[in-house]
Structure formats: C-alpha cells, structure tokens
C-alpha cells in the first residue's frame, strides 16, 4: 500500500502508485454496496466535517454517504448557516472545527488554494472537494475509476474533454490523472475557454468538436456555466450549442464503444442532448455510484494514514 498523506489537495502531486492505491481500494467498497447493510465500522468515532463554501448537492451528498458508510460522524456546514456571514476568516472557522476535534475536513470553496491554506494551518486531514478553478481530485479519481472499470486499462485510451476547460477544476484533475496513466488527452472548446498553456500539460487542443471526437474512447462533457456568456467568453448559448453540443450525429464519429461521462449536474439540451445523455454509452449514473466508493477509499486511506498523528504543524 502506497499512501501516506495527511491531506488530499489535488492530483498534480500524487504519483501513479498513490492513485493506483486509491483506485484499487475503491473496488471492495463498491462491492459493499450490494450488501443488505452497506456499512463498515472502519471510521467509528471519527468526525468528518463537510465545509462547503459553494453550493453543491452532489459532491456533498456523496462525501456524506461515503463517510456514513464508513461509520464516521458527519457534520455538514454550508455557507449560509456558518459564521462566514459574521466575517470570520476561513482559517479561524477551520481552527474552531479542529478544536471540536474534527479528524477530517472536506472543503469546497470558490477560491483556488483554500484546501492548501487549511492544510498549512491545521492538524486535521483536509480533502479538497473542489477549489475554484484549481482541482477537484475526487472527481478526477472517480472518472479514472469509471474508465478503468469499463476499459480495463487507461494507457493508450483517447479521452476527450469538451467545454469550459479554463474554469474547470474537473478538467484539471482529469488531465493530471489521465496523463500519469498514459492516456492521450484531447480538449475541445472555444479558444476563450481553453487556457493558452494547456498543451504544456501534454494534451492536444481542438477548437472543432467534429475533428476532436474522431476515434475517441471516452468523452467527458463539462458543464457550461451560463454566466460565462456575460463575461463575453462566447456570444450566446445558442452559438455554443451549435458548435459544442454533444449530439448523436457527432457521437457517430467516436469509437463504437465510446463512454460518455459528465461530472454533473447536466444542462440537458445545452452541452449534451437528452438522447445522448440517456443512451447506452452514457455512464453518468455509474459515475455517481463510483464517486461514493472512491471517496470511501480516500477517507479510509487518510484515516488509516493518520494513526501516528506525527504530522508537522506548518503554521
């Protein structure tokens, strides 16, 4: 077993064997879901805090279910009910939670680097549940897990990410994980939504979706945020749909056994047609199931790695 970290902040700095360990550990957890009692006592007595500074139903629920299936005590804190509104700094809020003996803090924040800030200031284990445009490591892991499950190996797979790469932490975590495992990653979207330096991460850039889609094994569609249109990043939703919507016609150019993934929540009829979202190639609901298994693996590994509690307080 190769995993001895206090925190999971991103996939950039994990090596391949660490990622492999998480993926391998997730499988037994997934098998657990078919039991009558989908629960194990591994994290009995541990307190897990979901600290969410950005609205999220999916990820928060997924972490909550994952924690509960490991028998941890879970506390959910969302912006509206927390002392954030009272002007308390993030570090102080988190220190308060630590004083209440939180063992693991899962943070979702609109600003990049916030999980790192907590990790520097706290002894508790920090899990990044998405920070700004930086990373969303558990999403990257669950996407990798899903591809691994369906395609048996990642090396050589042609994986296409479509949409707003610039503002996508999901894209970033996918790219880090996939390139470490030898997949050939393509990104497609308008130049305004693709960072100029993205090719330096070893991915191929396409502005034309019809070209990008040729012979791909996996298509991961990203959610398009309506507010990007107001920032003049594209002229209209109408034009975006015209150029980048995943339709059945476009899909025909991919490999016949292509996998269609979406991190959710989907804008049906915008980045993807309902027909495609509900077709047999789509594994969008399985991603949700796998998300719980992967998050259980992450929680288990971090909790197990904590036993010594000899981490250096970097404050």
């Amino acid at each position: 077993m190769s995993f001895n970290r206090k925190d999971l902040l991103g996939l950039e700095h994990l090596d391949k064997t660490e990622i492999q360990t998480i993926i391998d550990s997730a499988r037994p957890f997934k098998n657990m879901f078919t039991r009558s009692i989908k629960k194990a006592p591994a994290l009995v007595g541990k307190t897990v805090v979901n600290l969410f500074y950005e609205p999220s139903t999916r990820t928060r629920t997924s972490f909550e279910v994952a924690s509960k299936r490991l028998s941890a005590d879970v506390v959910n804190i969302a912006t509206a009910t927390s002392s954030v509104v009272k002007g308390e700094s993030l570090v102080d809020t988190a220190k308060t939670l630590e004083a209440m003996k939180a063992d693991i803090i899962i943070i979702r924040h609109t600003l990049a680097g916030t999980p790192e800030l907590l990790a520097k200031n706290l002894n508790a284990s920090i899990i990044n549940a998405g920070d700004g445009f930086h990373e969303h490591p558990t999403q990257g892991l669950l996407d990798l897990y899903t591809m691994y499950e369906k395609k048996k190996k990642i090396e050589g797979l042609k994986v296409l990410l479509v949409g707003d790469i610039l503002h996508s932490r999901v894209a970033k975590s996918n790219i880090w994980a996939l390139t470490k495992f030898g997949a050939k990653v393509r990104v497609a979207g308008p130049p305004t939504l693709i960072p100029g330096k993205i090719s330096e991460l070893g991915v191929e850039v396409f502005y034309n979706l019809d070209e990008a889609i040729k012979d791909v094994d996996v298509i991961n569609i990203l959610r398009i945020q309506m507010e990007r249109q107001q920032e003049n990043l594209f002229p209209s939703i109408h034009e975006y749909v015209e150029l980048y919507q995943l339709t059945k016609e476009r899909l025909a150019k991919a490999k016949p056994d292509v996998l269609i993934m979406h991190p959710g929540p989907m804008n049906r009829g915008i980045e993807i047609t309902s027909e495609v979202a509900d077709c047999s190639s789509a594994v969008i609901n399985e991603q949700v199931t796998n998300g719980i298994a992967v998050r259980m693996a992450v929680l288990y590994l971090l909790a197990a790695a904590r036993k010594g509690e000899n981490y250096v307080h970097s404050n």
Partner: protein
Amino acid sequence: MSIQIKNINIVDPSTNTNKIGDIFIEDGKIVEKLSKPADEIIDGKDKTAFPGLIDVHSHVREPGQEEKETIKTGTRSAAKGGITTVFCMPNTKPVTDNAPSVEYILMKAQKEGKVNVFPIGCITKGSQGKELAEIGILKKAGIVAVSDDGQPVANSQIMRRALEYTKMFNLAVISHCEDKELARNGVMNAGKNSMIFGLRGIPNQSEEIMVSRDIMLCELTGGKLHIAHVSTAGSVELVRQAKKKGLNVTCETCPHYFTLTDDYVQNYDTNFKMNPPLRTQKDVDAIKEGLKDGTIDCIATDHAPHTLEEKNREFDTAPFGIIGFETLLSLTLNELVDKNILTLSEAIAKMTVNPAKIFSLDTRGSLKAGSAADVTIADLNHEYEFKKEDILSKSKNSPFIGRKFKGCAVMTIVGGKIVWTLKDGIIN
C-alpha cells in the same frame, strides 16, 4: 558634531569615485575637511561607503494603517537596509491629496523617523482618477512627485493633463501602469502556473498597454514621466525605445522582479503575491538587460507591509505586496553585482544619483562636499541569513525569509547622525 570615516572604499557614482579615502562630516553635511578634530572617528577598513540609498517607492502606511507599518517602524526598517531616504506613496488613509496630510507625514517623520521621509502626493483627488489634486499646494507642502500608485489613471485625458500641469513644478508623474480591465481579478502572472493553480492571471500586456499609452502621452505633453515597478520584457523595450526618441521618461524596477519568477508561487504562498506579479525568466532576463543598458534608471523596493492575518488568507483575498527595505541592498549586490550584470558603481547609481536627479533632490545621492551627510556603509563580504526575527519592519511579509546573503549595510548615517549599526541596531 563631526565624523571622520577613515580609509574607506568610497563608491560615489555621482563623481565617478571608486577609491580608498576619508569622508568628513560636519554639521550634517559632507565637507572637504573638518574645521577641528573629529568628534568621532570610524575605521573604514574593509568597508565600502556609498551616498545614502534613496528608495523612491514605498508604502509606510501612516496615517491610517498603523497596524501594518508606522513612520517609526518603517524608517527603522529602512535604516537597517542602508536606506537614508524613502519616498512614501500617497495611498494612506486618508490619501495624501491635501497639504495637511503631507504636513502630518513630515511632522511625524521629524519626530519619530530615523531616515528622510519624502511624501509623494496624489495625481488626482482621492486617487479616484477623476479630477486633478491640488498639485501646486501639495508641492508647497513638500511632495517630491505625484502618483496614484496602486490605481492606474485609467482616463487618458486626465493622465495627459497631469503630465502637462506638473511641468510648471518640474515634478515627475509616477505611473502605476495597469490596464485594470485586462488584469481583472488577476492575482498572479498569466501563464502555465496560473493555469495549474487555478488562479486568474494578469497578462504582461496589462502593464505594457499602459506603459505604451503613458509614453505616448509623455510625447504629446513633454511632461516628466516615471514608470513605477517595471516587471515585463515588453515594458523594458517600450521604455528603451522612448529613451532613444529622447522622451522625458524614466523608470524603476524592484529587486523581486530581477530575482524571482512565477515558478516561486508554490503552495499558494501569499508572500509571493504582489502587483505587478512575478513574471517569467524571460522577463527577469529582460529586466536585467534593461538595468545593464541603462533603460531602467532606479531600483526601488515597493515596500508594502501587510499583517500576518491579512496574508494568512486565501490567495485571492490576501493583499498584494511584500516588504523590501531590509533586502534591497543585499539582493542588488547578490543578484546584479555578483552576477556581473552591473558594476558596484552602476548598481549604487540606481539607488543614489539617478533618483536624486530624476526627482531633483539636489543635495542628495552624492558624497560631494556640500551634500547632505547621508552615508551608507556596507560590508560587501558579510554573510548572513535573512531571518524573520531580525526584521525591523512591523510586518514580516517577505518571500526572502531564510535566504542567505553576502553583503549588507553595517552603518547608516542620516544628516550626519549615525542612526543604525549592525552591531548596536537602532541608535537613539
């Protein structure tokens, strides 16, 4: 009170001096020789003396943000860095756009300061970029330049008027060059690193567009333009071309722009967050080239103290800026002189005679007889580590903590008075 500094290596770019000799100080002035035996004799063996260093860009924060820095703590920090004169930017609270504010700073400096404090006045009222401040009255009160530093003057017409109007006072307009729309919400250099960190980037062009505009306005008006904190290769080239044309343009850079790149912004460490942001190696190389060929006239600190609480935050919400007084000389020596970018004399010129000329400080920046007796004595071989606990500034936001240096000030003399020595610290 008289001082004789004996057998010291004198480096004075204002007179092209570079020789062992004696420096005589009497009644706050440099003199040819003393009228009577010196009250104090300083052995200058193995030491080097320069005209006192002038830092044309700093934020001393008083009045209004005394939790970050005060004139008392800021000038002590400067003295430790071998700096004898600091220009303080007008973005205090309230901003320095009126005579009483200027007078307050001068009065505080008189009472509590250890080095000369020269206020810079606002270009526009409230630094709002809308109406010109009462620059004539500010000048009478004692400002040495005008600037809306921190805020660019976005309106070209107002910048034009400022460059025109200041001509009658021979005041330089110091321009913070930034296209705010292009830089919008940016917190670090736009590039591969900003992409990886998921932080909004500030492209080089956000600086260069404004440098370019201001140079054109300088050409239009014949005013005196000084570009603050140049950080990009493009800006250096624009200034180089402007100077070739004979325009009245000067500029400064800061030690971090010739020392660090955006590769240093690791782990969201906010001590590497400043505006303009750290750029790439290509820019660092161009800055060095600009220093070498004389395109860049001055090295200034942009000393910008912030409290630990403000800096221990999300990268996006932490304020821009780092402290710089105490590392100015060492960084210049180690990064420019030791690496043969500049000779010692050329490097010192950028912190003495050049700023004195640009900002018309007639009696400073030189060790000629008759000059104010501001002298920096350095030991070029003193090796030390820059430690947090040794910092005299009220704030400790430096990316250079833990860095090892060779060469630093060992004694600072301001107006004929020894204000700081390495051995005894601040002298009261």
